[in-house]
């Protein structure tokens, strides 16, 4: 049973894949049927009988683009099992200069295992954020030095709120 957090623009959805034909979205269970068309990234998706065709492809800055019924949805999906932001996650984007760690979703800061001035390596845990009953490790995208920590354990933060920086 896989759990994910999907972010569409400002909206956040906790999506739990129950089995091949059922998903739980923010507590509501849907019957789904999902098929790739001609082995292409075009999918026929049935949700409780509603029929949708979606073209899903990787976005320029990571994440997934969902083109559906003439609208484009920029999605980022976080995998709960692997306890990390997928490459698709917003944290992965910035590569150079100062890296500003922002909350990929609204939630509660569980722990900030670093102090200002600490040297961190690529992949070091910078913070643990609890959201929708899942704990997510937020990692450093590169080596650097921690600066300007702006939150502490116990704080609740909004989506995209700045947590700290790495120079």
């Amino acid at each position, binding site marked *: 049973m*896989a759990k*994910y957090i999907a972010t569409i623009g400002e909206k956040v*959805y906790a999506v739990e894949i129950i089995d091949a034909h059922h998903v739980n979205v923010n507590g509501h269970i849907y019957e*789904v049927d999902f098929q790739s068309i001609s082995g292409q990234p075009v999918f026929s998706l049935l949700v409780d009988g509603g029929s*949708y065709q979606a073209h899903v492809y*990787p976005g320029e800055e990571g994440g997934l683009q969902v083109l*559906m*019924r003439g*609208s484009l949805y920029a999605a980022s999906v976080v995998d709960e099992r692997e306890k990390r932001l997928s490459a*698709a996650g917003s944290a992965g984007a910035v590569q150079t200069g100062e890296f500003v760690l922002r909350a990929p979703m609204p939630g509660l800061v569980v722990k900030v295992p670093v102090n200002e001035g600490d040297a961190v390596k690529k992949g070091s845990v910078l913070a643990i954020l609890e959201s929708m009953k899942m704990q997510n490790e937020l990692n450093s995208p590169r080596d650097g030095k921690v600066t300007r920590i702006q939150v502490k354990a116990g704080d609740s933060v909004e989506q995209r709120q700045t947590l700290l920086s790495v120079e």
Partner: protein
Amino acid sequence: MFDKVLIANRGEIAVRIIRACRELGIRTVAVFSEADRSALHIRLADEAYLIGPAPSRDSYLRMDKIIDVAKKCKARAIHPGYGFLAERRDFAQACEDEGITFIGPRASAIAAMGDKAIARATVVAAGIPIVPGTEDVGNLSDEALLKAAPKIGFPLLIKATAGGGGKGMREVRSLDEMANLISAARSEAQSAFGDGNVYLEKLVEGARHIEFQIMADMDGNTVHLGERECSLQRRHQKLLEEAPSPFIDDDEDFRQRMGAVAVKAAKAVNYLNAGTIEFLVDKDKNFYFLEMNTRLQVEHPITEEVTGFDIVTEQLRVARGRQLSFKQEQVKMQGWAIECRINAEDPYNNFLPSTGLISHLSSPKGPGVRVDTGVYAGFQISPYYDSMISKLIVRGESRAQAILRMRRALEEYRIVGVKTNIPFHQSIVEQARFLAGNYDTRFVEERFSLEHAEEGKQTFPEIAAIAATLVAHQQAERSAHIIARGKRDTSNWKWVSRWERMHR
């Protein structure tokens, strides 16, 4: 009378011309650049010859090579399509000199109308209203242009004398930015038409772009096939056209007055074959001659759909020396037609051109839908040529039906591998101003934003979240799978190669 035609073009228009020839039992000869070996026009033609490397100047603009091919394979006629050599009087002349029928106007008419400055002088002499601009002939130096500008007044447009379709066109708001814009326009014109000459024209603001289709035969019978509304543009590039014009609509008197002027303009240069007179029309229904496109127009199909006449077939007929198959009084516009230009560009990223392999393509079908295209699943969109990959044309009994049909056709259109402006069109055909037919040439740039348009629409973020999650889940499962099973397992091949496609 010729029975074999060389098509000196590529893409959808080459295919369009080949189809017309097929339907008349005329044999066809395609020419192609090294980038186009697999292009559809090569596959559909009876003969095909390589004429050079990918860049246009080395292939599709090489008159000498093209005429050599025509002589070698005994094609007694050449159809230039649009763009490339279509409006080059020297090419038409070269054909004539070689005894090859140029399927289009006489070289003299191209010279007169093709050079926009001369054109303006010509129609003025015929008493046709024009937009103020540089009155003198082409070959204007940068200095001359900079001197003329203040007399015309700003804002104004720099336009390519050889050109059309917005190429080599620049908008100038003040004298100090003008020098740079002139050189930009010249180089763009040079690469597009092989001619860097430009001229100036006053910018009529809030104007509509309405054009009339002309057909003329060798006996001088000259008729118009009604108008096309082409105001929906972005940076002077037409994106969506309709016939009739919602602005003229059922004002038949206004239509016939403009049509008569269009015919008069064509006759002023003793016009032959198909051409288009472009007008600027202001809110008070004053109209000004803008230019004449002395060739087949990209958007000719919407005129075909509402008049029932096949313009390309008629071009071939006239070029064979026969009379037009219809008289002015037989031309009636019935129903409504709309064309969306499908371009390989990213509407969500400043319309940046998109190239790549089309891995999947499914075209809209069914009643009232026509697709003119030169691409197919498996074709590589190269960076060398125009980004227009397809024209989606619908016809309906009424404008309302045509719009509803266009909506369903756009939604059916699936192109995977390159980004397209289909979502842009899907938003346009939902706009209140478009539905009201109330838009001018600045509508897209000044009053339309894709982002805002989408805010209005019914959206399905939760469905998108489910779709994205299922794809991400599938990817995770699969990558796990790959590691687990390793490359030796041949049963992986199929989905792996599929997977590669998914990540193109």
